[in-house]
């Protein structure tokens, strides 16, 4: 084994890769820009849209209520809501978004309440439509407050304490540390992202260094040099591995920065994005190194498998048609780890990709099952070594190198 020769091939491939616009875009620019654009850009847009919806003063139609002046007066005094008088075709008006909701006060409502007779106030809305939901929420909150006030008055009139209606409380309390809570929520996502990005990072150079080389006619040139085919394939393999890991590292960094920026603008408390941001910043070197160490054999596996498959192709386009379906083969097990309730078992720890994805979830949550870590690391290393062995063998087959 000549490390010198492998190094010569690696350095040459690296020089070519950094001069290739397509490689730079897919390996560096896309991972660096994807998350800021997707999370910050999309998040900012969502915040802007929600804010705009909340700022709008919705029109709510009042139906009935002529004999319930106190309730009607209370509704009219509500902040940021415009009560409009009853008009025909009110349902269509809600559907057509001319008004956002309608509230129906039944006849004799106020006197029924006074006589302690039960009655129903109905709110009509456009389900799933954000502005209609906001309007409904405001009206419903007012009616519930009114109901609570009535209950309190009734209890007071009968000299009864409020505990009559609420003899005891039920409370939930979390005992898991915050990083474990967030880890369980987004640990699967991190595993999924790292796996998928290792794959996408390896894909372009895998095609360029094999099928691309055949297509450009340089395969025969390099095969006429004294370098052994094993050294040649290893030099190429290490470059593909570098791209895979580089893409994954840049993506995770970009994801962390994007989420923290988003968290800064959203106040860091609301939503999973902000939680993710907080978590990514709190991951700590131990978790980051653990995830990276587990990503290493996966990137190794992808680089070898993708290189072997792409080597069969005669042209870059043909290689693309072989490798694109591979994305789905990887996405499915990686996604499966994100399903609620999916956990590592001895059998699952032998299934490539799925095992690492499940393990990442545990690692991010700060749980280290050393027996699983060992099984998964070594099994993935074995799969990766087998894939690399096949790649080396394929590189020695004339029927593959000179397929016509």
């Amino acid at each position: 084994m000549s490390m010198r020769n492998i190094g010569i091939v690696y350095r040459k491939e690296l020089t070519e890769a950094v001069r290739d616009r397509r490689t730079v875009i897919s390996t560096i620019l896309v991972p660096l820009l994807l998350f800021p654009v997707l999370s910050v850009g999309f998040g900012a847009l969502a915040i802007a849209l929600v804010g705009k919806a909340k700022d709008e003063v919705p029109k709510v139609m009042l139906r009935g209520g002529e004999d319930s002046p106190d309730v009607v007066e209370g509704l009219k005094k509500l902040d940021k809501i415009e009560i409009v008088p009853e008009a025909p075709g009110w349902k269509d008006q809600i559907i057509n978004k001319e008004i956002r909701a309608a509230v129906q006060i039944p006849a004799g409502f106020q006197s029924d309440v006074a006589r302690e007779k039960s009655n129903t106030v109905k709110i009509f809305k456009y389900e799933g439509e954000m502005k209609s939901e906001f309007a409904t929420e405001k009206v419903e909150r007012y009616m519930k407050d009114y109901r609570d006030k009535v209950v309190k008055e009734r209890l007071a009139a009968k000299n009864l304490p409020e505990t009559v209606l609420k003899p005891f409380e039920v409370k939930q309390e979390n005992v898991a540390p915050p990083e474990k809570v967030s880890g369980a929520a987004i640990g699967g996502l991190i595993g999924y992202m790292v796996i998928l990005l290792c794959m996408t990072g390896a894909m372009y150079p895998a095609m360029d260094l094999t099928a691309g080389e055949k297509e450009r006619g340089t395969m025969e040139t390099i095969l006429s040099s004294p370098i052994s085919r094993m050294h040649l394939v290893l030099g190429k393999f290490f470059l593909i591995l570098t791209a895979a890991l580089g893409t994954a590292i840049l993506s995770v960094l970009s994801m962390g920065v994007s989420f923290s920026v988003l968290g800064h603008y959203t106040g860091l408390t609301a939503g999973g994005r902000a939680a993710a941001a907080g978590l990514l910043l709190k991951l700590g070197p131990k978790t980051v190194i653990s995830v990276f160490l587990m990503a290493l054999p996966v990137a190794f596996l992808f680089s070898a498998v993708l290189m072997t498959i792409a080597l069969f192709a005669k042209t870059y386009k043909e290689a693309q048609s072989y490798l694109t379906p591979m994305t789905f083969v990887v996405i499915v097990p990686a996604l499966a780890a994100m399903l609620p309730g999916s956990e590592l078992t001895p059998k699952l720890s032998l299934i490539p990709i799925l095992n690492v994805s499940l393990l990442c979830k545990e690692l991010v949550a700060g749980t280290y099952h050393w027996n699983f870590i060992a099984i998964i690391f070594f099994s993935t290393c074995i799969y990766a070594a087998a894939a690399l062995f096949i790649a080396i063998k394929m590189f020695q087959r004339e029927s593959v190198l000179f397929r016509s």
Partner: protein
Amino acid sequence: MIEARGLSKRFQDKKRGEIRAVDNVSFTCQPGKIYGLLGANGAGKTTTLRMLATILEPTDGTAIVCGYDVVEHPEKVRANVGFLSTATALYRRLTAQEFVEYFGRLNGLDEPTLKKRVDDIFNRLDMNEFRDRRCDKLSTGMMQKTSIARTLVHDPPVMIFDEPTNGLDIMTARTITAFIRECRDNGKTVIFSTHIMSEVEKLCDTIGIIQSGKLLVEGSLGQLRDKYAEHELEEIFVKVVTPHYVAEEAH
């Protein structure tokens, strides 16, 4: 020196079954001489030369190149061979100098020796003007010079040219033929394949005519003229090849 001993290459084709691309070919090329392998398209020239350059492995037989067996020591054979064909393209994103240096390093040259050799070759081939230009920005002539520099960087004693002038304009083709002569004059063993008769007439000391993977005849141009009572090489070639071609068509 090159000594082919019963070289054979068979391929499996899904539609046509087994194909004998090269069938028991034996010949010898001497240092300081040019051996021309003449044949029509698909005759087996490229496969023969690829086996000599160890890009393909023989199915049967072998060849000894500079004392090394192509089957047993392919890497040592390649270290003693410069291989040039129109199919050996350049790495487009490297500069001409980086490209030549890459192959120098792969041939085991240390950095001081490599620098000296690259400077010598670039001066000799008048390549300094474009040494830092990327290969995808070079003209066809510049590309050919860069390819020549690549084959020379390790100063191999054996040169193999596979249809080196195919598709090139006349001026670029002349650069190549001049280079082939220079290799011979420098005492290198040279073998080249072509289907261009005039090139063979001008360059070759020994001519081998190949058809359907078989070496049908070999000798100097004078010997072939005497044997077939024809002056033009084209007529000799037709006389040699036609019976086999007809038999093959009938088969």
